[in-house]
């Protein structure tokens, strides 16, 4: 009984003392601890934010260009070509999320450490024993925690608001720039064809090499990697859009990564495949056409690459010395490409002209003809026809003339059909294309009575061909193509400026493709 009374009195006194401590000590101290906790939590979280944003936190993973290429910054991946570029993502398109996560991570980490420090096993019993006096510390810690999380939340909200505004502005600018770029490409027909053998891929968007490290960038369109510029892995800033990149960067083919001509992707791109049987005069026609183009345009025309420069020099040498033309090797051809300045045009003052000269064997053999995929993407074609391959002409021509003509032994109608049927088999819309039928060796043909009255005009050449038994070929061509014109061409140097100039068909073909020669 006596013990119980002592216990009761003891507990009563303890409760009274605890209540007194709570009201006289803990309550005022809790206010002070809460203030200190709020200040400490805010300052700590702000310092941690600055630490993360200045790159001090090694726990925040950098979004590397390799990760961007593998999809870390998001965005669609096109099925046909690797479109995700290896470059730094724009800060607000990915790295910002990692930084905000880093701020949360740092705040939570530090808060847990602080709690862990004060809530150690050895201190826990003391806190419980001194309960009312330790309550302010617990309140201070709670306020410290809430303040830190509050700052992290404020950082998140401000970042989200700023990111949203920048995405809206950047998105609008991105679509405007992409739209302008695509409209420019459609208007000026600047999709560029790879001139290299066995590729001939038509690049809607070329890849561009970084001038710093040489890495090929496959997608320099405005987007998540930057609106106005992308940043290469090496740190070099690269301008976006075909228009701006085309000024300053070296374009390369998306498929084979070989060099394209400077300005490819930005300049109007004209591809002219020349086909016809062996010895029909294709190579000679091309030589003469480039020779005349150089005479007509002067310095405005230049070779677009080293191989083309060499080819043009060889052409000039052969034409000047009137050397015979060696048979073209039966290998997939590389285009001869020239860059032509167009003085009258303000916005797109130049164009690239690719001329493809495949060996005649390709026009005689359906199987190997299938290899020439560049035929599929040309808007204009030139079919070279040797008049001495026509039976009526060869029968009338003497042996000497036939010898000088080095006549083609293959039927012109068949060489036409091999190529055109191949195009149609590949569902190429030939009725949307233009065809120049070039009757070659006009200088030799003019010596024959059979060619009396034949003049280098469309109607005259057409009627003459029909009269020599090629009416079926004429009908087929006119039914297959949107526009067909007939030309009589002499590939000798003296023909420049005359109606038999090889430049006449080239001029027409280019005009059909929107390029008016000077």
């Amino acid at each position, binding site marked *: 009984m006596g013990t119980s009374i002592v216990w009761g009195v003891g507990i009563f006194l303890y409760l009274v003392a605890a209540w007194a401590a709570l009201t006289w000590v803990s309550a005022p101290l809790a206010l002070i601890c809460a203030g200190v906790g709020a200040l400490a939590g805010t300052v700590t979280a702000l310092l941690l934010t600055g630490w993360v944003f200045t790159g001090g936190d090694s726990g925040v993973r950098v979004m590397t260009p390799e990760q961007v290429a593998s999809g870390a910054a998001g965005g669609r991946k096109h099925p046909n070509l690797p479109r995700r570029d290896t470059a730094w993502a724009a800060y607000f398109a990915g790295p910002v999320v990692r930084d905000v996560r880093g701020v949360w991570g740092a705040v939570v980490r530090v808060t847990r450490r602080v709690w862990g420090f004060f809530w150690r096993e050895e201190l826990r019993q003391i806190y419980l024993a001194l309960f009312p006096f330790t309550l302010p510390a617990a309140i201070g810690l709670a306020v410290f925690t809430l303040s830190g999380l509050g700052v992290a939340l404020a950082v998140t909200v401000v970042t989200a608001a700023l990111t949203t505004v920048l995405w809206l502005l950047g998105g609008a600018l991105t679509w405007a720039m992409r739209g302008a770029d695509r409209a420019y490409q459609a208007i000026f027909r600047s999709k560029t064809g790879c001139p290299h053998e066995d590729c001939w891929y038509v690049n809607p968007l070329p890849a561009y090499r970084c001038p710093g490290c040489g890495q090929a960038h496959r997608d320099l369109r405005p987007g998540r990697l930057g609106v106005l510029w992308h*940043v290469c892995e090496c740190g070099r800033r690269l301008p976006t859009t075909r228009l701006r990149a085309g000024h300053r960067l070296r374009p390369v083919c998306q498929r084979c990564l070989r060099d394209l001509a400077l300005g490819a992707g930005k300049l109007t791109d004209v591809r002219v495949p020349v086909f016809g049987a062996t010895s029909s005069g294709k190579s000679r026609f091309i030589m003469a056409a480039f020779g005349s183009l150089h005479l007509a345009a002067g310095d405005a025309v230049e070779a677009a690459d080293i191989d083309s420069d060499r080819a043009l020099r060889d052409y000039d040498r052969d034409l000047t010395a009137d050397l015979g033309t060696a048979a073209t090797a039966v290998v997939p051809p590389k285009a001869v490409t020239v860059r032509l300045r167009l003085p009258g045009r303000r916005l797109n003052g130049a164009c690239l002209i690719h001329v493809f000269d495949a060996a005649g064997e390709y026009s005689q053999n359906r199987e190997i003809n299938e290899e020439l995929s560049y035929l599929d993407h040309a808007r204009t074609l030139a079919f070279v026809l040797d008049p001495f391959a026509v039976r009526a002409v060869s029968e009338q021509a003497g042996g000497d003339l036939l010898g000088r003509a080095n006549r083609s032994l293959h039927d012109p109608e068949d060489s036409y059909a091999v190529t055109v049927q191949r195009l149609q088999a590949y569902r190429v819309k030939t009725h949307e294309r233009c065809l120049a039928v070039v009757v070659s060796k006009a200088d030799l043909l003019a010596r024959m009575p059979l060619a009396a009255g034949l003049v280098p005009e469309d109607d005259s050449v057409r009627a003459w061909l029909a009269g020599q038994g090629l009416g079926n070929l004429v009908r087929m061509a006119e039914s297959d193509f949107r526009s067909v014109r007939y030309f009589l061409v002499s590939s000798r140097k003296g023909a420049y400026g005359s109606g038999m100039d090889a430049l006449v068909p080239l001029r027409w073909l280019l005009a059909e493709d929107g390029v008016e020669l000077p």
Partner: protein
Amino acid sequence: MNQPISHRLSRVVLLLAVLLPLAAGAGALARSGVPATVWEWCVRFVAAVHSHAPFS
């Protein structure tokens, strides 16, 4: 791997975007007298607690 300078600049802008409104908000709060009012409430609360405390 060195991150582009644009990332560093963006972070500085972002940091300023967080700090400047926070500083401005703190300044405005201090001028508004809200902290003094809150402090006064707290003191009253403590005084109210004291009035029910033993030995008061």
